[in-house]
């Protein structure tokens, strides 16, 4: 499957990356090469094979719904680049 530069621009937006013109060029070439290699999976007959999501398939793990201490707000906020002591601060989302 061929990958165009437009595809790469779209994927960069979906992946929340901002790539320079040079990076877009390199990425287009490299992804085409890697995806070209990965395309060999198409030749494997996987009819009737269930997808394997985890290496050791476990039954669902349940636990009681009990109140327990969690990370205090100030400690969670301490890792953030910008906060006001109550919540995370981000650039304005609405109003423009």
């Amino acid at each position, binding site marked *: *499957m061929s*990958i165009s530069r437009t*595809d*790469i621009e779209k*994927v*960069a*937006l*979906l*992946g*929340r*990356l*901002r*790539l320079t013109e040079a*990076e877009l060029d390199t*990425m287009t070439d*490299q*992804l085409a*090469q*890697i*995806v070209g*290699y*990965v395309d*060999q*999976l*198409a030749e*494997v007959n*996987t009819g009737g*094979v*269930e*997808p*394997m*999501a*985890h*290496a*050791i398939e*476990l039954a669902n*793990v349940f*636990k009681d719904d009990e109140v327990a201490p969690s*990370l205090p707000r100030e*400690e*969670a906020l*301490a*890792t*953030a*680049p*910008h906060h006001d002591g109550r919540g*995370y601060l*981000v*650039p*304005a*989302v609405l109003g*423009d």
Partner: protein
Amino acid sequence: MSLLQQTASEHLRKLESGEVTSVELTESFLRRIADVDERVGAFLRVEADAALKRAVEIDARRAKGQPIGRLAGLPVAVKDNLCERGHLTTCASRILANFRAPYDATVIARLRAADAVLIGRTNMDEFAMGGSTENSAFQATHNPWDLERTPGGSSGGSAAAVAAGMTPLALGSDTGGSIRQPAGLCGVVGMKPTYGRVSRFGLVAFASSLDQVGPFGQSVEDVALLLETIAGHDPQDSTSLDAPVPRYSQTVNQPLKDLRIGWVREHFGPGLDSEVEAAVRAALDVYKSLGATLHEISLPHSKYAVATYYVIAPSEASSNLARYDGVHYGYRTDETQMLAELEAERKQLAGAGDRAGLEMLDSALVRMYRRTRAEGFGPEVKRRIMLGTYALSAGYYDAYYLKALKVRRLIRQDFDRAFEKVDLIAGPITAAPAFKLGEMAGDPLAMYLVDLYTVSANLAGIPALCLPAGHSKTGLPIGLQLQAPPLQEERLLRGARMYEQATNWHKQRANL
């Protein structure tokens, strides 16, 4: 020097008998780090003061006859993707350069409970993505056997630290070979346990269905000791296995009777270096001389393992790394500059009457995400995010991600069938010894193909180990990989120890 030639198990015996104190031991490893790490670059941070303080405390408790843990007083180095409360955990990434973890990874808590001395944090490929440790945002690590060569990766710092005698033990993580491959290239022992054997709680996620924490040491005995310390069920990790953990160190010296060793036809294909092939065949002969029987087996889907891995791992990575958004953790782009940039673009598009362009223009929040991630991530991490986002995007999910999950099951079934006939599988860890730093730069696909022999164990979830099994004519270590069925770590360690006791490769040290 002689102190540094000894294994962790020997150090422990001397600590227990009072022949050496933890302070003396820790000081000698710190001196070794001061002497050689400028050339090797294994450590991102050496925690000398904290380590010595801890050593003093453990010595005092031992002197008073108070209870002490299984690794009491023994230095352990830790890969920089395991969280330690209040300490930096950078994943060798600019985006986490200032991140201090608010909690302990379970393996860190277990090391502390065992009274290990945490001596420092080791270098790695950024977010564990790579096989050379060259993708670290901070420094290169050099192979102690030849400083112009890679130590392998992504746990290259941990492998090099053990190989250079800067620590007796180290932790790494293995998503596609990141413990075993550097162990092989640096001539030490490294092990990836069964998926779920060791808790992933507090391990910074790369590909959650493949990631596993594991030990490095100078001998199989040492690796057994460290594994039994960190393994076991953890309610904080829902994929952790609720199965009893044997005392591996108590049984590791017992040879296995009637051992059936499988060798894989597909492992000896074109591309395998002749010296590596000779070393692996010689290792098979060693097993034969120890009474094991050799059996040719086939893993017919192994040739698809790298392709399968490079769909699944980047897909999971692109999803896991979405959390680095400049909001919750670490780095954020300069907002004033970001808003000025957006405003300039807006004016330019408005001036040109480009309505479509204006509609497509990022919002301030999206531009903040995009600039933060563009500035915070290195090229390999960006490549994996792009690859994973592509494989998961509308129209491609079935063709790539779902298809890869199906081939993954076929790869696992190959192993299940093979293990009906053999107890362990032996083979190469890489097609060739350590390559030169910079040799693979600019060719990501060639770099991915280095993972040929390692990724299958992660896809299948089985335990695998690499131990020293030879040297090239140029003096570079060659590793032997052993693989076992799920949860058969005890068999794997005992089988590896049989080889180790019959050979001297693990006693060879890099000349630094």
